[in-house]
């Protein structure tokens, strides 16, 4: 014991310093948890308000727990507004977008990483340049283009423009680049075509990058508001984000129903995030280090 203490002291530590360190740790934990409570409060309030009666929900109170748990709000909401249709549209659009983004970025990423063809560098630079294009600059031309094509208020308008993006292509290209050249050469010697090499060897290799691409394209599509707002006209093609803003006008003071709708809209994103949070953090680390 004496020996340990003396070595610690030599390193510049002492008992008093340690004690104040524990106090500081305690203060840090306290601040973090209090702040964490404030951050999560809107979520807690949203979920519990969705289970309250109209009278209870419209009486302002910091008390979170409902007196009577109104689970029927969660069923009633689908009768009150066409949320069933909205959810179908959102999932259908986001699912289709995700599927095509994956296919297109796999093909394009593979081409940029492995194939040799005329004008490759120019095309790659052009594709990467689309990342710099501000969304608001192309919004109006794209709306006009969609209208001219006769796609206004169709699933095509919601899905087609988002089925490829430079960021996903870049991510998969970088992932394909990490596959050692030997793999590719030996596959070629065995008479393996590009397509079968891609399917059998390359895709399993880039699976983490592919999952990240899929997650982000699903969430981006599901959370988007501005584009669906301008290309859809009625509830048959409306997605949940637009549906919720419309509903917030119709709901008036029905706070409990509005919160039920908000909870239902928020739920898929939170579930996906909690299941796959590992990929989210890896991605932000990667992006963060690029700076």
């Amino acid at each position, binding site marked *: 014991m004496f020996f340990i203490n003396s070595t610690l002291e030599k*390193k510049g530590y002492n008992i008093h310093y340690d004690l104040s360190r524990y106090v500081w*740790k305690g203060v840090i*934990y306290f601040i*973090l948890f209090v*702040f*964490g409570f404030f*951050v*999560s409060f809107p*979520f807690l309030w*949203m979920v519990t308000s969705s289970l309250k009666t109209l009278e209870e929900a419209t009486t*302002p109170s910091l008390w979170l727990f409902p007196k009577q748990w109104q689970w029927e709000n969660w069923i009633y909401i689908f009768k009150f507004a066409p949320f069933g249709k909205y959810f179908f549209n959102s999932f259908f659009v986001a699912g289709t977008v995700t599927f*095509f983004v994956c296919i297109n970025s796999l*093909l*394009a990423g*593979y*081409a*940029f990483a492995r*194939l040799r063809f005329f004008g490759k560098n120019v*095309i790659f630079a052009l*594709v990467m340049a*689309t990342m*710099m*294009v*501000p*969304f*608001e*600059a*192309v*919004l*109006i*031309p794209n709306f006009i*283009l969609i209208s001219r094509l006769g796609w206004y208020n169709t699933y095509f308008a919601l899905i*087609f*423009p988002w089925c*490829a*993006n*430079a960021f996903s*292509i870049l991510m998969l290209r970088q992932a394909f680049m990490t596959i050692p050249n030997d793999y590719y050469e030996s596959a070629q010697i065995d008479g393996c075509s*590009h397509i079968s090499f891609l399917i059998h060897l390359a895709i399993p290799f880039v699976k983490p990058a592919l999952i990240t691409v899929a997650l982000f394209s699903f969430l981006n599509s599901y959370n988007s*508001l*501005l584009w669906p*707002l301008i290309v859809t006209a009625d509830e048959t093609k409306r997605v949940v984000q637009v549906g*919720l*803003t419309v509903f917030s006008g119709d709901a008036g003071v029905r706070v409990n129903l*509005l*919160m039920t*709708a*908000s*909870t239902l*809209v928020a739920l898929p*994103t939170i579930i996906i*995030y909690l299941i796959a*949070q590992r990929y*989210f*953090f890896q991605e*932000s680390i990667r*992006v*963060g*280090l690029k*700076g």
Partner: protein
Amino acid sequence: MFLFPSLLILFPFFIFPIFYALQLSLWGGKRNMGTFVGLKNYIFAFQNPMFWQSLQVTLYYAMITIPATLLLGFTFAYFLAKIIRARTFLRILFFVPYVTSTVAVAMVWRIFYNPQLGLFNYILKTLGLPVQQWLLEPRGVLNIITGGAIDPHYGPSLALVCISLFDIWHTFGFAVVVFLAGMSTLPQEYYESAKIDGANPWKILLHIELPLLSPTWLFLITVQSIRSLQSFSSFYALSPASGRTLGTTENLMLHIYSQFYEYGYWGYGSAVAILLSIFIMLLTYIQWQWARRYVFYQ
């Protein structure tokens, strides 16, 4: 051809429209191309008080949200880096608002801000303070705080500050995660040698962590500037549809949206969109030029 499907989408929807937008901005018409008007749309924008007001709103919003998000993000990343237990849990918790649909959580805040049903006025009433109109209040926040000493048109309106507060809550988690990632890459030896030299935590923060994290700061400033200048969803969901709080909560994106979509001025909308794009590109360029002098790369 492997590239064909991607190019089929990227060219017509991301490259061609840039030129089309430039062309549109020189034409004037209502829900059609109309006639060639030259630079009239741009001249009209510079003469339009609504354009200047929405530009002002956009800049106020950026000036409130960017420093607040980064400082909160850095502070809590710094605290999280100092603890071990519950770090993952808190990191996941702080990041939840960022991944959740803006519209869904904006609805919660809209009710918090509601003058009759909301929690903010309930808390003010309980504390015996005067209630506020929050999102419906066009008066400047400085006017309210100083009890009328400052002109009500000066500074951001209370309604705009409310939207900014929502956005800070919504995005600070992103900054926490990026800063935390940046901190985890700092070489441990620096800390060790600083401790041996007798540096206190404050000195370590000031002379080691802050300079070494300058690339992370630059990245976050760039990303958050672009994001806040292009912000649409939080404004659309929180700004009152009738009158936009006398225009004090109409940012440039809402201005473009209402001019182009609600009123049908395609040419004018394109002109403002191009002005905003140029502004964003210039700002990013300036930030990177500035960074070349001050950012420290290992």
